[in-house]
């Protein structure tokens, strides 16, 4: 039992690894701060694009389905390790940014599109009758209602994006998982990995609870 505790919950090791882990946590937060706005704005742009015409809807649909079929890690490796063969050396940060722009973008696009579709057409008719210009109709009338309708999905997607920033480990960006592995291999002890698990849990558990609450509220509303 004490062997087990020493291998997974060693406080001396934790003290040694503390600086590395905190540094990793900050990098994870920074990655999230980059990935979330990129994904959200791409998703919104794609969703708006798909409303221009039936053809635009078809094309964005194909684009979305294509990038939903490629695992994010594969996309990242393609950008990071494939493009240099074409003389395009993006480096780890830009590769991760583009990966999330595309991957998170198409998922957010689906959410925004569903939200906008759920707003009754009477809303935009009424806004037009009041003489509002299309930009204002979208920004002031349709989007706020759409976002409220799909709030649980937006939160759920964002939670997935934050968790997914851990793939940056593979291209050696020193985020939480990377630092935990680094600390583990220098101390020959699994405590830093367990610590990373705990950090993620503490960080995201409130979001998971909130999400559960939102989802249940929506289900109840539907009945």
């Amino acid at each position, binding site marked *: 039992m004490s062997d087990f505790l020493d291998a997974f919950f060693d406080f001396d090791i934790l003290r040694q690894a503390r600086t590395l882990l905190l540094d990793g946590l900050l990098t994870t937060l920074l990655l999230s701060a980059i990935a979330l706005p990129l994904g959200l704005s791409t998703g919104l742009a794609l969703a708006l694009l798909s409303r221009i015409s039936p053809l635009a809807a078809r094309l964005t649909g194909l684009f979305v389905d294509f990038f939903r079929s490629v*695992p994010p890690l594969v996309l990242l490796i*393609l950008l990071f390790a494939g493009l240099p*063969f074409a003389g395009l050396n993006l480096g780890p940060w830009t590769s991760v940014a583009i990966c999330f722009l595309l991957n998170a973008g198409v998922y957010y696009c689906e959410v925004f599109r569903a939200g906008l579709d759920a707003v009754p057409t009477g809303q935009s008719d009424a806004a037009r009758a009041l003489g509002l210009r299309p930009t204002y109709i979208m920004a002031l009338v349709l989007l706020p209602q759409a976002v409220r309708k799909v709030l649980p999905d937006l939160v759920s997607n964002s*939670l997935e994006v934050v968790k997914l920033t851990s793939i940056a480990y593979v291209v050696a960006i020193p985020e939480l998982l990377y630092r935990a*592995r680094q600390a583990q291999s220098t101390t020959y002890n699994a405590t830093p990995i367990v610590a990373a698990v705990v950090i993620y849990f503490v960080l995201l558990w409130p979001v998971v609870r909130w999400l559960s609450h939102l989802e249940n509220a929506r289900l109840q509303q539907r009945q």
Partner: protein
Amino acid sequence: MTGLNQFIFTFLNVKVMMDWAPKIAAGFAVTVELALLVVVAGLASGLALALLRLSGSRILVWPIVFLVDALRAIPPLLIIILLFFGLPSAGIELSGFMATFLALSAVLAAFAEEIFWASIRAVPTGQNEAARALGLGFLPIMFLVILPQAMRMAIPPLANRTIAITKGTAFASVVGLSEILGASQSAVAFSANPSPLILGAAAYVLLFAPVVAFARWLERRFARA
């Protein structure tokens, strides 16, 4: 060589692709096997957990909710790393395949439990009462009356979640499994040409595009109901 030819020679090199196609095809089989096992184990244990939670006994509900929350909050790649690089400290050595299978099916089970549970609870209580009045027991009520109705609500989110999680099979390349991504990456290293990676990406699209289209169809079909 012109620019386009150079591009084709680099990224769509037929000879390199042909050389490595068998390796990547073998990786494809590994990915499919892993994905199917994850889907079956994840959905089945998700349903089992949801039924246990519905039984309502506090000793069961509390740990299940905690476990599900934890698995929803922790990145799957981190769980795979924990199982693969951490467990050996406890004398348990898992293969890359096993670590990925356990991690992904646990994560899928957690998400599926939440979806099953919420959908079952959304079935009007009158259904349960009427079935009980007819003298049906718990299991017949569940499997013949409640679940068929709950499934209509559960299937679209379940399909999307299942796809998202099975795409995580690519994480197995990080723990040394030669699935599609792993096989493509070693082919790139050996041939000094990125074409195998393009082939690998194409293999993923071949595998997942029909599933994504099917999920979209399910969504539309059940949205009307």
